[in-house]
């Protein structure tokens, strides 16, 4: 226990030293503040952006809200379609054989690659982002629920068969519950992918959102806003993952501790 507190103290100290050195380097002029603004400046910019629409047309809160909405719509749609599709591919042999080669072609294309096509179809509004994120999350959802169902223990199925369970009953009472942890792993990968491709899609073409904010700030050379935006993107990415882990711990049996 004592060892733990020692290391925790070291961690806190390390973080403080890191920020202090950063502050010192950029205020003293050793590193140009135009390339690396000091933490105090970043904090001020953060507060400023919370209340002001300049220079990119929306407050920070609006950008965050738009990005979250796009990410979560796309993610939810991907899960709702991907999980049942993966499950049926794993459970019904013919279905599997029909979709597998097609899926194998689409699978290795990174979601970012879909951005231009989606923009051509849907314009630069919300719809194109949601569809890119849909692709980013539907693929891991399919892969993971597929392998989750495939890993069902044969013994369990044999027991069910012996007691005269139908195929459908076996699917819903054995295969799907035991695939739960794998499906959640899929959700985790999907959520991560959603957030990454959201940023990419917004960087390439958009009028609102966090990616748009840092892109515009870059174009006018406001590196402090870029920094704030990048940190906020990281923070919200981590928060979304934390939320998912919380839900998983609460509802799925036999997953990670």
């Amino acid at each position, binding site marked *: 226990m004592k060892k733990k507190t020692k290391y925790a103290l070291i961690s806190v100290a390390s973080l403080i030293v890191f920020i202090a050195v950063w502050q010192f380097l950029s205020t003293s002029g050793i590193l140009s503040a135009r390339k690396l603004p000091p933490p105090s400046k970043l904090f001020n910019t953060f507060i400023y952006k919370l209340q002001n629409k300049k220079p990119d047309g929306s407050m920070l809160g609006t950008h965050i809200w738009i990005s979250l909405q796009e990410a979560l719509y796309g993610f939810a749609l991907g899960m709702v379609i991907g999980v049942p599709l993966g499950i049926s591919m794993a459970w019904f042999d013919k279905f599997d054989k029909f979709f597998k080669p097609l899926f194998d072609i689409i699978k290795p294309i990174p979601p970012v*690659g879909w951005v231009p096509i989606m923009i051509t179809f849907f314009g630069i509004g919300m719809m194109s982002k949601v569809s890119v994120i849909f692709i980013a999350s539907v693929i891991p959802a399919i892969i993971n629920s597929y392998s989750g169902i495939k890993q069902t223990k044969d013994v369990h199925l044999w027991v069910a068969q012996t007691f005269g369970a139908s195929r459908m009953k076996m699917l819903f009472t054995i295969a799907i519950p035991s695939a739960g942890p794998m499906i959640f792993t899929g959700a985790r990968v999907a959520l991560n992918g959603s957030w990454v491709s959201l940023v990419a899609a917004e960087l390439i073409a958009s009028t609102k959102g966090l990616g748009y904010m840092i892109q515009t700030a870059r174009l006018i050379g406001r590196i402090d806003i870029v920094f704030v935006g990048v940190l906020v993107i990281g923070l919200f990415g981590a928060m979304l993952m934390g939320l998912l882990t919380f839900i998983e711990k609460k509802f799925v049996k036999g997953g990670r501790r």
Partner: protein
Amino acid sequence: MKQRLMSKNARDTLVYGILGIISFLLVWQLACLFTNFGRIFPTPGESFRALMLAFVEPIGKYTIVGHIATSLRRVLIGYVLSSVCGIFLGLLMGYSEMANAILFPIFSIIRPIPGIAWIPLAILWIGIGESTIYFIIFMGGFSQMVMNTIDGAQQVNRELVGVAKVLGIRRHQLFGRILLPSAVPYIFTGLQTSLSTSWMAVLAAEMITATEGVGWLILSGMQTGRVVNNVIGMLSIGGVGLILASLLREAERRLCIWSVRS
């Protein structure tokens, strides 16, 4: 009897697979013929012809082979750098509690930031050019590499370490004989995920800053309204991604014989 069953299964796989692809192409073709979709989107035949043509006629600076080679070179440089640094940092943090206590808080600020989000910062720092693209690819794979290596280093079987110590192993031997081999399977998992994020990062970087490469090819398709370029770009990305992933899986199978994972 069993053999006949097997061959029936194989035949089914083939038949249904081909049916699947044919029906996809058919839907694509029909959509092009009968809906508005066809006004902006090429038919399967047109796309195929354009793909073949791209091998001989240059689009922008290079033919499609040149674009793929450019992107591959960039990925490889960024990926190798990020893997080496990531494995080093991960091993350091995994073995030494002290290093972990010092570095982890700082690392955990960087970790959740997607590689792609570094693009604007990288451009402001380094400008537009090759090194920016390497940097973005580097950041894309780096944190995954570190996390996987830490996991692997901490996952080592304590009993093995205990036995080795009882038998009088030296500290540097412990690292080479026990700790490192048990971390390697995790490192390989890291290498795989990081390769696919690197491939994604190069696309995004090329879409935003480059004038050649597969990412540029796709984006130019959008900007000039030649959706065909878009489609062939995506086909080549998918193909290359598939080849890279299977190469790495094969390498793991051969190099990592002590790993029991499937």
